[in-house]
């Protein structure tokens, strides 16, 4: 029988022998392999955890964009109101509006901003049984929407949660920045969106609330609108400069309707005026 080698007996010697066999080529190949596997795994986890899909904090990078900004949160209780009216006026920054506010609240806001100018003012009032909240960027009162702000002050993110059950009218005026309005869980009466520059996504793909009318004016930037394919929705589009892509919708001139659209039933009417940029309409 052959005697056992030193390497088999001594783990330290085995490690030492392994290291001595490591040529620079092997080191490079190992580093390349580790890099590729790490990036693929990392970005796969990121994708699976919703890092690349639109949400409260849309990201195209693995970094949390609001990590170094302090969050300022506010809540606006319903106070017995049976309906609501919400107006949001943002000069520059990214805005996300979605459902999910607590049952007793009409609206909850989280503002991430490095600049005091970007902290909003709130005006709250009651009109009969309707509660009205106006959220306005402080700087907007004094300066022009688009050009008043230095680039660093664009480091501004508003995240607004609205009540899922109470019907409300929503108006959004956004100067510059991306705008995501995800209202699948809410109950709308009217929706008005006016955006200056930036991409806008309006997602009503899961909308099960009452019929509503919407007016959308998009300035410069791409617009994506999703509606539920089972809904009775009619979209009128005035397209400026840019492509239009419609899926799951029937087109008649400048009107797009969901399958089985019936004008005699309650209709979700959406009017879009697009300036410059592509429009994507989807029935999902």
């Amino acid at each position, binding site marked *: 029988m052959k005697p056992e080698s030193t390497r088999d007996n001594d783990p330290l010697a085995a490690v030492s022998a392994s290291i001595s066999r490591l040529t*620079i080529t092997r*080191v*490079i190949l190992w*580093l*390349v392999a*580790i*890099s*590729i596997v*790490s*990036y693929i*795994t*990392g*970005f796969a*986890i*990121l994708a699976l*955890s919703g*890092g690349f899909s639109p949400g409260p*904090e849309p*990201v195209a*990078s*693995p*970094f*949390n964009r609001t*990590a*170094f900004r302090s969050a300022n949160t506010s809540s606006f209780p319903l106070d017995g109101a049976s309906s609501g009216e919400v107006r949001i006026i943002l000069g520059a920054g990214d805005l996300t509006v979605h459902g999910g506010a607590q049952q007793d609240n009409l609206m909850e806001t989280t503002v991430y901003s490095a600049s005091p100018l970007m902290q909003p003012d709130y005006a709250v009032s009651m009109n009969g049984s309707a509660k009205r909240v106006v959220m306005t960027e402080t700087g907007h009162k004094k300066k022009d929407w688009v050009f008043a702000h230095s680039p660093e002050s664009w480091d501004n993110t508003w995240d607004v949660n609205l009540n899922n059950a109470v019907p409300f009218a929503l108006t959004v005026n956004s100067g510059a920045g991306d705008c995501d309005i995800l209202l699948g869980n809410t109950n709308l009466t009217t929706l008005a969106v006016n955006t200056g520059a930036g991409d806008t996504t309006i997602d009503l793909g899961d909308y099960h609330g009452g019929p509503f009318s919407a007016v959308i004016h998009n300035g410069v930037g791409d617009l994506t609108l999703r509606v539920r394919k089972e809904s009775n929705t009619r979209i009128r589009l005035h397209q400026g400069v840019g492509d239009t892509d419609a899926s799951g919708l029937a087109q008649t001139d400048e009107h797009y309707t969901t399958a089985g659209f019936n004008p005699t039933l309650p209709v979700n009417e959406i009017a879009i005026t697009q300036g410059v940029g592509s429009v994507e309409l989807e029935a999902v």
Partner: protein
Amino acid sequence: MQQNEQEFIRILRTRLEGTLPKEELDDILSDYSEHFSIGKTNGRTDEELWKSLGSPEDVAREIRVMHLVKKAEDNRSCTNIVHAVVATLGLGLFNLVFVLVPFILLVVMLAVIFLVGVMITFGGVTGVIWSLLQIAGISAYSIWYSPLAGIFISIGMTTTGLLVIIGNYYLGRFFYHVCIRYLKWNIRVITGTESAS
């Protein structure tokens, strides 16, 4: 100043002492001495031979450059290549443009790539630490959208940084080789000789 063999050899020795090893210096001086002896045997005067060789200062400068370039070629080191480049500058003012400027740009480029590699590596290590802190629930370190993804991406960054540093090392070796060839070509063009070594 008398233009004779002794003076020529004396200047050459003075200029090259300390740069060349003694044996090599003696060989070179012996060659020049022999050149004078053969010339005089053929009936030429010291002044004629002096003029045919050029000034001993220029001759010493060329020998010094060739020696330093050869030394840099044989023993790769930052000091040797810098000495070779600096010596080459002495061959002509225009080498400030044709040698010094490209050399400085090359060094700066390699330094920048090295620094980028170090920063990526450092960023990766920091990213791993921040991911772990974020997983531990310390909100001040919540830079990652997903801390688990952050760990993997940070490891990728670290290894990428190391690859950049290693790549920079090989790039440096390649440019060292190119630099030596360029210096030799430069010397050949200036001195009009076929071979610098």
